[in-house]
């Protein structure tokens, strides 16, 4: 994790289990490769919401798309129930789609602008021939009402006639229509105003309870992720750093990167001087040439020679709290101040 290992994987049954997943993108003809996901293992348990956080470019969306088989993994496994997705092809893969859905960040452009809302929500039911004509129509009306859209008025209209928040509701209706087991939500509220964001977060919680969903929730806003998740995984440059329950992770982060991320969050309290709160110096290194050993070491105030030589392995520091770091922070231990080293 900012190293590798599987100590955190559950022994019991999981809905989704990703092992040793690697995704690389070639850069033009240069022979160079972006290492977007670099040996990630993670599991998602029945009925939970797993939050995924990390800075832009750390590979969150790529991981989501690799689970969906929208991008092809170079190696590793994605087990959905007992089906191994990475080796499935064509029709077999298509048959898994209604059970595994994805919602994207930009609510307006992720809906086909030429289609009417009724058709958009129905699409999955038609493609996978779920139910008969009457039951499909009933399902469309049901899910639209459930997400808070006036179904009768909406089905004949097109996406551009709706606000960003309403489009995100329609995306959610479309995703739940096929009765999926898992929905991967890639930054579903990042493009929305705080007021609409709160409505959509509450809606996702309601959908989860109503349809018994399991969610993977990708976001870069740590407060949002804390609010919705049962477990949170922190990623850095294609690796996992830390995974724990949100209350534990936020109260006592064990990975220096998590601690630094938490200290960079702006707080709506004028008594707190933001310039004295730490944060992370510098910028994320190029994924074309990630640092050896621990990928976070170029920005880590605790880094030693060992961190450059050896990749840290994931270990359980407290019950259900896993971290990949040679020198994890103890409970209550603060991260020393960082030098503002801009890479």
């Amino acid at each position, binding site marked *: 994790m900012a190293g590798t290992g599987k100590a955190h994987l559950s022994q019991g049954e999981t809905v989704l289990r990703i092992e040793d997943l690697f995704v690389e993108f070639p850069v033009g003809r240069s022979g160079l490769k972006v290492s977007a996901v670099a040996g990630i293992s993670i599991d998602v348990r029945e009925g939970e919401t797993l939050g995924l956080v990390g800075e832009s470019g750390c590979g969150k969306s790529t991981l989501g798309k690799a689970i969906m088989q929208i991008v092809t993994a170079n190696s590793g496994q994605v087990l959905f129930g007992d089906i191994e997705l990475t080796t499935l092809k064509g029709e077999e893969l298509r048959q898994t789609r209604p059970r595994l859905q994805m919602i994207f960040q930009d609510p307006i452009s992720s809906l086909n602008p030429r289609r009417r809302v009724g058709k958009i929500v129905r699409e999955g039911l038609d493609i996978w021939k779920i139910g008969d004509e009457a039951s499909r129509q009933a399902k469309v009306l049901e899910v639209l009402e459930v997400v808070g859209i006036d179904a009768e008025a909406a089905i004949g209209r097109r996406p551009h006639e709706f606000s960003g928040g309403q489009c995100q509701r329609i995306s959610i209706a479309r995703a739940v229509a096929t009765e999926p087991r898992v929905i991967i939500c890639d930054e579903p509220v990042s493009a929305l105003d705080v007021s609409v964001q*709160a409505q959509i977060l*509450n809606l996702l919680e309601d959908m989860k309870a109503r349809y018994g969903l399991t969610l993977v929730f990708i976001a870069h806003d740590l407060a949002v992720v804390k*609010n919705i*998740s049962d477990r949170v995984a922190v990623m850095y440059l294609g690796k996992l750093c830390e995974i724990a329950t*949100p209350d534990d992770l936020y109260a006592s982060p064990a990975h220096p990167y998590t601690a630094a991320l938490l200290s*960079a969050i*702006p*707080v*709506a309290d004028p008594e707190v001087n933001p310039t004295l709160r730490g944060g992370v110096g510098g910028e994320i290194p190029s994924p074309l040439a990630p640092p050896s050993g621990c990928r976070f070491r170029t920005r880590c105030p605790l880094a030693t020679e060992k961190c450059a030589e050896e990749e840290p392995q994931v270990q359980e520091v407290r019950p259900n709290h896993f971290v990949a770091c040679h020198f994890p922070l103890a409970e209550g231990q603060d991260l020393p101040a960082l030098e503002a080293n801009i890479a």
Partner: protein
Amino acid sequence: MSAASIKESSATTPASEAPLLVVNDLKTYFKTDRGLVRAVDGVSFTLERGRTLGVVGESGSGKTVLSRSIMGLLPKRDVERSGSVKFEGVELVGADTSLMVEYWGDQMAMVFQDPMTSLNPVMRVGKQITEGLRQHLDISKDHANQTALALLSSVGIPEPERRLRQYPHEMSGGMRQRVMIAIAIACGPKLLFADEPTTALDVTVQAQILDLLQTQQRDRYMAMILVTHDLGVVAGRTDEIAVMYAGKVVEKAPTKVLFSNLRHPYTEALLSSIPKISDPSHTRLKTIGGRPPNLINPPSGCKFSPRCAYATDKCRTEEPPLSAPDSDGHQFSCWFPVELSAKQTAGVR
């Protein structure tokens, strides 16, 4: 600030002693096919030298149009702009473009939300900085180059010589925003507008950029108008906050007063809809129902009334005026302002 005291200060004091910026009843309407969009609808405030005003509100509330209208950076056609913008006592509403050109860059400058679209993609970064310098300060090419180097180092860009020769796409988002700041402060403006300068950036980079803006501002004694939809961003970094709703300032107060004693139901609702990092996970969020109003046909009475939990018939028929500042300098426009008990539940992150 009342209209009377504005007149008094601008009529009798010499330009250099007049407040840096006095905006009075500024209105900016756009004529569109669907009708008149009242994007800014009577905004007044005063900003002194070296101070920071935060402007907060949902998208579409008029924050960007307000900044652009103060700077005179509006489309040439189909705009109605009225009211008064006095910069060091000089009236800018109705001023010639030739006068405004002297102000842009030199006296006031702007950092935009998306540095990629506001930098010229086909011009080296160095040239983009030196061009402005040479235009405004009338200095030699060498001198301009030296200044550009110094500026890039001062905004925390390592290896400035190499960076000067790069194009914007060769830089990360955070680096580009640093370049934007370097360009904006190059000519030593007295007033800097930062319109959502960190909305497109990661929290880590966001913190770095906001720190940078703050140090530059202190070192140069610039005034700043920091526009954002994130109350967390303005909390520790502004002297005063104006909350905008539907083209109007609905509450304005010194930052500490606003957070400890908010009075407007919209400010309360905005603050309580933010997930708080200190709350346990799965805390049910308070939401503001509905959406911001249509600015072509806004609701009658208080524009927040269709979404306000405390609205009465009076609210739906009569528009509340912005109150005169109290002894704390606190102003709000509401018939039934939030009382202490309700406020405490709003809390902070």
